[in-house]
């Protein structure tokens, strides 16, 4: 997808929303304008409070409605100087959606986010949009998701609804760059003769956008007794490349990163349980790739069946929210001798308290790996003034083995200061 062209088209439509002919504008309802200006800075705790992130964001949100039609646009300008070796200067038409609502259907065309699933912190079904991983998962998902151009239609039948997605925009996760604060190096196989020729990484092979390569999704949602349920299916692509490898003359290990197709089936639901709400979510994909052992010692990625599930429980009590969750991911009937773990389990906990008429929020999010003990703890205090200004001070604290997903950032503990003006 020619993103520059799409951006230009989108920008013109956005401008058209604002600078409409006077007579037409006079007859149309006014534009609803909103957004925010934010400065976010982070400081390494173990390194004399060296600045590790300094980001300024201006996001402008526009909405204009004509009867059953609505156009929404979100433009984001961002300037960040510390998170990665290169300064990030972004001007992005994040979202541009034309929506038509009728009595029985909603059709949304354009660049947008689609949010599936019910889990917090870790994603199982929330897989429609890829992620900007330059800050890994240590930001709000609304900011981390990369919106996609798509057609999104939902039909409503009483308490039930059927959603269909057609996604021609093949955009994948945007990982942190080498040298970035949260860069994760790929697990490369050893060279055939240690100390000699390092593996050679070819260019990533990404699919071209044509109808046979587009992503397609469908979701049913409805109620069954006290349960609210969804059944989801996505015929998509993996969000990041798989490193296929072969031995080339030299000898040298040649790595060929390719984005494979991925089919995902899922279920989610919630139901009152005791004084709270039980949330469940499960996914199955027959197209997950995991490295398995080979005779030449290089290993190779092999397609595996992967089952994941999560259980969570939300308990609101007075000004408190208490929300524990557990996650498990399991390779079913492994194909080959897995080089990594067959299963991974995580637990999360959210503790939140709102005070002073909701102006003061105290929040603690903790994520703990149960198999390879590692932890991310994120306490945060935030305060609002005048209904539009918010100041928050938080921390990201990591612990665990150096080869773990979180433990590798044990020397990157940081304080995060965020000042946001909403308008």
């Amino acid at each position, binding site marked *: 997808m020619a993103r520059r062209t799409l951006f230009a088209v989108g920008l013109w439509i956005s401008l058209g929303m604002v600078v409409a002919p006077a007579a037409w504008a006079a007859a149309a309802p006014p534009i609803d304008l909103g957004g925010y200006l934010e400065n976010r800075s982070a400081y390494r705790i173990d390194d004399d409070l060296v600045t590790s992130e300094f980001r300024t964001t201006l996001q402008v949100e526009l909405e204009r409605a004509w009867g059953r039609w609505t156009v929404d646009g979100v433009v984001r300008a961002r300037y960040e100087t510390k998170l990665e070796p290169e300064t990030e200067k972004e001007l992005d038409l994040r979202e541009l959606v034309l929506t038509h609502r009728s009595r029985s259907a909603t059709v949304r065309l354009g660049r947008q986010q689609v949010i599936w699933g019910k889990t917090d912190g870790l994603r199982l079904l929330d897989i429609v949009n890829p992620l900007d991983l330059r800050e890994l998962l240590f930001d709000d998902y609304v900011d981390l998701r990369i919106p996609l151009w798509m057609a999104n239609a939902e039909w409503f039948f009483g308490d039930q609804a059927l959603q269909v997605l057609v996604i021609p925009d093949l955009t994948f996760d945007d990982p942190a760059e080498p040298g970035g604060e949260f860069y994760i190096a790929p697990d490369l196989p050893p060279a055939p003769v240690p100390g000699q020729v390092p593996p050679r990484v070819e260019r990533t092979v990404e699919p071209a956008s044509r109808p046979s390569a587009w992503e397609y999704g469908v979701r049913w949602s409805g109620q069954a007794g006290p349960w609210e349920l969804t059944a989801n299916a996505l015929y998509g692509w993996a969000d990041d490349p798989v490193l296929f490898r072969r031995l080339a003359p030299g000898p040298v290990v040649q790595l060929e990163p390719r984005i494979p197709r991925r089919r995902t089936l899922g279920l989610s639901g919630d139901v009152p349980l005791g004084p709270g709400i039980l949330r469940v979510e499960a996914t199955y994909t027959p197209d997950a790739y995991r490295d398995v052992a080979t005779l030449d010692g290089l290993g190779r990625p092999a397609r595996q069946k992967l089952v994941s599930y999560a259980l969570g429980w939300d308990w609101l*009590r007075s000004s408190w929210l208490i929300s524990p969750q557990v996650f498990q991911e399991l390779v079913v009937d492994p194909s080959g001798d897995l080089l990594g773990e067959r299963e991974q389990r995580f637990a999360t906990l959210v503790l939140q308290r709102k005070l002073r008429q909701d102006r003061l929020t105290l929040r603690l999010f903790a994520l703990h790996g149960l198999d390879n003990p590692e932890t991310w703890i994120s306490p945060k205090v935030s305060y609002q003034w005048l209904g*539009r200004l918010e100041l928050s001070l938080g921390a990201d604290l990591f612990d665990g083995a150096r080869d773990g997903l979180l433990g590798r950032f044990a020397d990157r503990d940081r304080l995060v200061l965020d000042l946001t003006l*909403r308008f």
Partner: protein
Amino acid sequence: MRLWMGVPEASALTLVVISLTLGLWAPGEVWAAEESPGRDLIARSEQRTESATEKTTYRMELIGTDGAVTQTRRLDVYFKRSEGVKRTLQKFLSPPVVESTGLLVEDTGAPVNDIWLYLPATRRLRRISGVEKSNWYMGTEFAFEDFEGYQIPYHDFTLVGDDECPEGGVCHLVEAVPASAEERGASGYSKKVYWIEAESLYPVRVDYYGEDGHRVKELTSGGLEREGDYWRPRTIEMRNLDNHHATRMVAEERAVDAALDDYYVTKRFLRSD
């Protein structure tokens, strides 16, 4: 004294306190068993005040301990009754920190209602347990259960006497005590006292008592005015007698029994930013 004033039937259905304007409504069935002056008065008050549809735009003021307004909000409240279910949807219009935040309550007549909260920051609908209806709502002095109607089947009502209404006139005082174990477990109140204004049968004041028996909150409705077949207050104020905060709601626009598409009381509308 004859209190029944013969309001139009189907169009003038019920009800209550703030639910008049904000809220959730008690089951629509007419209570017939166990006749008592208190229950009879409450049933007639309910019948006199509930419309079929309603949309109101409010200015909401959060008031601190010093009496100063700490935040002013605007919100739309939609109410519709259809197929035995009463749905109320609240959507905040301003200020920016709460814009598009919304709440949907579906009252099927059970003591515990289904509640959904939409937060634009996460773009997610979060279901809230109706069992925890005593929780505070959005930093206001209202709890979710304060938006409910009289919940007649689940309370015992006793007429305890008359007194002068806050804005003058005679009020009949009716004490409501949870009668079912489920209501006792879910409610944060051990008792409520409704001040029913004699002419309009509108509950112009409600005193709320905590589990330890002391008065914790006081709701007053002021500026009663006719809206078609119904009486509606212009202002509603909930005072928290423990923390000395208050929340005032001022009706700016109101449409009673006007055409209201089902869409405005659905999760679909709730999650439309």
